[in-house]
């Protein structure tokens, strides 16, 4: 018993020494944040070049013309209306309304020619269009969400939000078919009314939907149409 104790003790001591036994100890350190603005490394440029040439060719294609600048904003915006309305057209009657989020629209589209690159800047993510069936309670939660956030890109419905009431269409419908992205459908941006609902894919990414629409049209003239009105200073 005693010898076991001794053995344990010696092992404990050795372990203790071992625990601070690393051969080298840090005695000091120094740090620096360096901005990257050097000359280019030519071997790296050589690797990039074929990729860049092909990509630029794709990206610089002019696919449409817009009469005015498309910006995002609240409660309603030209960019939001544009993206929602074309997505609903893409869904071809399979959805009643459409909702996206302002945070997901990443850039403006300047007036004039629209290139593929412009659309990539607006929608850099690989988000897909999906449809979810909402019941009236969930639909009301969606409307409240839009009212509380001061407005999000929405299409297919007009909403008048007063202090405590929301006036809108589809109130009597039992199931409202909502078009959105898989990102939001999975609860992104806190859209909790979508969580755990079945998602029907329509088989196209949001970015591709925008690009295809632009290719089909020569010129677009997007308007603010008062689809979203907040009263009582909301």
């Amino acid at each position, binding site marked *: 018993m005693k010898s076991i104790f001794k053995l344990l003790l010696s092992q404990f001591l050795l372990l203790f020494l071992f625990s601070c036994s690393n051969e080298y100890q840090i005695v000091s*350190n120094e740090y620096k944040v360096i901005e990257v603005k050097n000359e280019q490394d030519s071997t790296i440029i050589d690797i990039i070049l074929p990729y860049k040439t092909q990509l630029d060719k794709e990206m610089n294609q002019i696919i449409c013309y817009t009469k005015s600048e498309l910006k995002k904003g609240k409660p309603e915006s030209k960019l939001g209306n544009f993206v929602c309305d074309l997505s609903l057209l893409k869904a071809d009657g399979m959805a009643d309304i459409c909702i996206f989020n302002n945070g997901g629209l990443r850039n403006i589209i300047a007036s004039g020619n629209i290139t593929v690159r412009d659309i990539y800047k607006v929608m850099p993510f690989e988000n897909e269009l999906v449809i979810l069936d909402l019941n009236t309670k969930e639909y009301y939660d969606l409307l409240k969400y839009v009212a509380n956030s001061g407005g999000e890109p929405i299409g297919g419905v007009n909403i008048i939000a007063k202090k405590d009431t929301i006036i809108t269409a589809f109130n009597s419908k039992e199931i409202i078919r909502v078009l959105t992205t898989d990102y939001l459908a999975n609860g992104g941006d806190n859209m909790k009314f979508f969580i755990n609902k079945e998602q029907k894919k329509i088989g196209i990414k949001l970015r591709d939907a925008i690009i295809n629409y632009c290719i089909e049209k020569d010129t677009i003239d997007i308007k603010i149409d008062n689809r979203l009105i907040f009263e009582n200073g909301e």
Partner: protein
Amino acid sequence: MGNRRNFIKNVSLGTIGLSLISDSVFANENIKKITILHTNDMHSHIEPFKSGKYKGLGGMAQRASLISEIRKKEKNVLLLDAGDIFQGTPYFNYYGGELEFKLMSKMNYDAATLGNHDFDNGIDGLERQLKHASFPFLIANYDFKNTILKNRFNPYKVFYKDGIRIGVFGIGIELEGLVSKELYKETVYNDPIISSNYYSYKLKHELNCDLVICLSHLGYEYKSKKISDTVLAQQTRDIDLIIGGHTHTFLKKPKITTNLRNEKVIINQVGFGGINIGKIDFIFKQNKRDFNVKKSSIFVKKKKKTT
């Protein structure tokens, strides 16, 4: 332990501590210098920013020449990345990350960890690009055993530089809610604190690393109780440096906090998009006394097996 305390004091001295060590001291075999270079959240920024606040900054060809310049001056460089290499420019949308991995390989990155956006083309999309990366991805708290990525990553790697042992392990963020399940499939997220304590102990005390680095994609700090680099540093025992990402935090200088043993932990993160490179130099001094102890440590292990 005394040296550890000196380190703690010297950290606050920063540059002063280093400038006192002249070249003649470096000639002394007992002093070693290790240079850690690090990036995070490069988000497919192959080319420099063309507009906005960061116009003219970044670019992988520019980063490569900066790194070569540093490699000419410094003998022992370790080049690391804390994840989110993918997503952010059409280069990713068109080529799926191939060019990012090729260029990082060309720059001789030593290791990277995985960020949530590295799952943006699914685990299949990540798997397809791995052949273009000559550097390992380290990830200690994702379990890929029921996925296509099974056995493709190690939790840690030990680097030997000029006699110094540097243990690096990777920690990823919880994917649920951040990445759609269709993309990460059966990848299992394990507790970062438990994983970090396990691997940092192993690196420091079993593999005798002189420096333990955690490459983390948890994010710098949150208002909520969500696990972050700051929480991780305080809830673990054997990490010397956390190189972070995810929150795109531009730290002017690293944050220094204390771990469960009340020892200093350095946390650093350098924004996003390849705008900056972080450079941290560590000066090590040899601890002569330890030679004997190390021998006996082997003895301990053998003894343990027989009991």
